[in-house]
C-alpha cells in the first residue's frame, strides 16, 4: 500500500476516534456541571478538562473567562480550534477524500455525509445550548462509521493502519478522561464506597458506554479504585486502555516490515504491562504517574509508526 495512502487512513482513524472521544469527554463534564454540589466548583471541572486535553493555552488565547458555554463552544464547534469536534469531523472527511479511491464508497459517503450534516447544522441546531443532542449525534455517527468500516472495508494493510490510528487515539482519549477525573478528586484507592464518589465515576462509566457492563460483570460498588481497575485493565471492556493498546499491538504485527521491529517491541511492552498489571501493583499515589506513562508511550508509538511506515523518506 502507498505510504501516503496508509498515512491518510491512519489519520482518518485517529480523527474519527478523536471526535468521538471529545464528545464523550464533553458529555462527562457537562453532566457533572449539572450537579448542585458541583455548581460552585464548576469552573474547576472545565479547567481540568481543558488541561488534560492540552488546550489551556489555546483556550486562554480566545477567551478571557472560563464560562462553561465558551468551553463547550471551544471544544465542540470552534473552527479556530484545530481539534474541535467539528474540525475533527472535517479532518476525518478530508483524509477520507484523499483516499476515496482506496476505501470503500460506503465509507467515503459516511464520512462525507457526517461532515456535511455537521456543517449544515452548526450552529443552528448544534450549539452549546444543545450539547447533549450534539454529543448523542456524534456518538451515533461514530457507531455508523464503525459499522461501515467493519462491513465494507477490505481487510488489508489499510484496515490495519486505520485500526492502529483508531486504537492509539482511543487509548490516549480514555487515559486523558481518567486523568481529568483524578485531577478533580484524587482517588483514594483503599477507601470504601463514598456516596459522593458514586455520581462522577458512574458518569464516567456511562460516557465510556461501560456502566451497564460494570454492573453486569462486577459485584463491586462504584468507587474510584474499582472504576479505574475496570477501565484500565479489563480485556473485555470495549473502551478499556488495555484492550485499546492490545489492538494496537495486534494490528502492528499484521503490517510488520523490515524496519518496524523496535516499534513492535515497544507496543508489545505496553501491551504486556497492562496485560499482566493490576491496580494493586500501582502505588495509590502513583496512578496518575502510571497513566502519564501510558500517554508517553502512545505518543512515542505514534511518532515511530510515522517513521517506519508512513514517512516520505527517499528510500520509500
Amino acid at each position, binding site marked *: 500500500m*502507498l505510504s501516503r*495512502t496508509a498515512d491518510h487512513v491512519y489519520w482518518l482513524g485517529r480523527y474519527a476516534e478523536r471526535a468521538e472521544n471529545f464528545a464523550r469527554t464533553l458529555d462527562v463534564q457537562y453532566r457533572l456541571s449539572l450537579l448542585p454540589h458541583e455548581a460552585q466548583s464548576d469552573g474547576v471541572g472545565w479547567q481540568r478538562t481543558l488541561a488534560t486535553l492540552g488546550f489551556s493555552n489555546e483556550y486562554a488565547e480566545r477567551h478571557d473567562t472560563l464560562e462553561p458555554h465558551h468551553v463547550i463552544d471551544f471544544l465542540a464547534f470552534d473552527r479556530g480550534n484545530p481539534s474541535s469536534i467539528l474540525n475533527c469531523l472535517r479532518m476525518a472527511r*478530508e483524509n477520507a477524500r484523499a483516499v476515496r*479511491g482506496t476505501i470503500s464508497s460506503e465509507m467515503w459517503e459516511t464520512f462525507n455525509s457526517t461532515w*456535511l450534516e455537521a456543517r449544515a447544522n452548526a450552529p443552528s441546531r448544534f450549539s452549546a445550548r444543545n450539547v447533549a443532542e450534539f454529543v448523542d449525534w456524534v456518538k451515533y455517527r461514530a457507531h455508523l462509521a464503525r459499522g461501515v468500516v467493519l462491513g465494507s472495508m477490505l481487510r488489508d494493510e489499510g484496515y490495519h493502519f486505520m485500526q492502529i490510528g483508531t486504537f492509539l487515539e482511543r487509548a490516549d482519549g480514555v487515559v486523558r478522561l481518567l486523568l481529568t477525573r483524578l485531577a478533580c478528586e484524587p482517588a483514594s484507592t483503599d477507601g470504601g464506597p463514598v456516596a459522593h464518589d458514586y455520581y462522577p465515576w458512574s458518569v464516567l462509566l456511562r460516557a465510556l458506554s461501560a456502566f451497564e457492563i460494570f454492573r453486569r460483570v462486577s459485584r463491586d460498588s462504584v468507587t474510584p479504585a474499582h472504576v479505574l481497575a475496570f477501565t484500565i485493565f479489563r480485556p473485555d471492556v470495549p473502551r478499556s486502555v488495555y484492550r485499546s493498546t492490545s489492538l494496537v499491538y495486534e494490528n502492528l504485527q499484521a503490517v510488520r516490515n523490515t524496519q518496524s521491529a523496535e516499534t513492535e517491541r515497544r507496543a508489545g511492552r505496553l501491551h504486556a504491562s497492562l496485560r499482566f498489571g493490576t491496580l494493586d501493583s500501582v502505588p495509590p499515589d502513583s496512578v496518575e504517574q502510571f497513566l502519564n506513562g501510558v500517554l508517553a508511550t502512545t505518543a512515542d508509538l505514534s511518532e515511530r509508526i510515522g517513521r517506519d511506515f*508512513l514517512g516520505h523518506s527517499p528510500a*520509500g
Partner: protein
Amino acid sequence: MDRPEPPYDEMYAPDGRVRPHYSAYSDWLVRQPDDALRQKRVEADSLFHRVGITFAVYGEQEGNERLIPFDIVPRVLSAEEWRALAAGLRQRVRALNAFIGDIYHEQDILRAAVIAPEQIYCNPQYRPEMQDMDVPGGIYAHIAGIDVVRAGPGEFYVLEDNLRVPSGVSYMLEDRKMMMRLFPELFALNRVAPVEHYPDRLFGNLASVAPDGVADPVVVVLTPGANNSAYFEHAFLAQQMGVELVEGQDLFVREGFVYMRTTRGPQRVDVIYRRIDDDFLDPLVFRPDSVLGVPGLMSAYRAGRVTLANAIGTGIADDKSIYPHVPDMIRFYLGEEPLLANVPTKVLRRPDDLAYTLAHLDELVVKEVHGSGGYGMLVGPAASTAEREDFRLRILAAPEKYIAQPTLSLSTCPTFVEQGVAPRHIDLRPFVLSGREIDIVPGGLTRVALRAGSLVVNSSQGGGTKDTWVLED
C-alpha cells in the same frame, strides 16, 4: 436574429411527432407530473452531494466543491445512429494515432505536403523529446474524447478531438447510476446499452500497452492531487479499476525504473494513466518548477521501462490549427473517405480565409487555436459590436492564432428546467479506447447548455450533463 430553420430536436421531428426511438420515453414522460420530476431532481442533488460527485473550484476555501448540474431527461440515440457514429469515431482515432506516430518518426505527411512543416515545428504542442521514440503498439492517444455535435437536419460533426487528458467519463458512469436509481422503471421500458464496464475496459486497455515482457503489469492513476478540479474522476477511476491513485511525490525513478513508495518499500510501476499535462510530468525535462511530476520520468519512459497513457506529445494532433487537416489524415493514412464530417473551418493564417472571416464576423465563431474550455472565443451572432471590434484587432495582430467556423445550430434535447421541460442545446463526448484494439462503450457524456438559447455546454460556463442512452436493436 435571422434563423431560417429551427435546430434539430433529438426527440421531436419537425412535424412535431416523437421520433421512434424516443417513443417509449415520451409516453412515460407525459404521464409524470412536474412536481414529481422536480422532487426527483432534488433527490439527485442530495445524492450527488453525499457521494461527493463534485468538482473543485479554485481560489475558494471551505466548501470549494460544486456539483455539475445533472438533468433528469436522458439523451437517446438509436442503434442505427450509434453504429454510424461509432464507425466514424474508430476511423478518426485510428488516423489520429497514425498521424502522431508519423510525426514523431518518418513524417511522411509533411514530405507529401499535406501539412506544412511549420505547423508542426512552430507548435508548442510538438515535443521534440518524443522524436524517434517507439511506444508500445504504436498507440499514443489511448483515451480519446471526441466532441461531436449534431447540426442542420441532423448530421453529426466533430467539433474537437481531445487527445491529452480528456475528462468527463466519470460523469457518464455516475449519470447512468443516478438514472437507474431515480427511474428504475425506465430501464424496463427501454433496452439501454450498458456502460458500466468502462473501467474494466480501461484497465484492460492500459494493461495491454505495458512495456514488453511485463506479465502482470502494475497500473496506477497519476493525479495532481485533491485540489484538482477533476480529482473526483481520478479517484473514481482508480477505485473502479482497483489500482493505486498516486501523486507525483509517491513515485520516484531509480536506475531507470519507476517505483512507488509503499509501506513495504518500493514497488515497480509499469503503466501510468496520467491525468497531469505534459508540461508538469518531469521537472528535469519540462517545467522545472513543477512539483506535481516525477523527476527522471521521461528518461524511464524513453528507455521503454514504463508506459504513459496518454503518450507525451499527443497535443500535436488535437490542436485547433491541426483540426482542419484531420479529414486529409484519414485519406492519407487509411485511404478511406471520412465517415464523420469536420465543421467547415476557416484557417486565418490563409489570407483568403482571413478576409472572409473579417467580413463575416457577425456570423462566425472565432476560436483561439490554443484555447480550451470555452474561453478565448467569439460567438459572432451573440457578441456586441464592441466585442466584435475588439476581436477584429486581436485577429489582425496574429491571424495564425485563430480559426473560424460557422455558428452551428447545435441540436436540442428536452431538458427539465425551472419552467418545466424545454429544449436546450447539447453536444456529445464519446470516449474511445485504443490499445491492441479500439473499444468504445455505447454513448458518452452528453453536455447541455442550461441557459435558454446558449450554445456553450462547458461546465465552467454553466453547462450540465445528461445520461446518454444508446438503444439496442
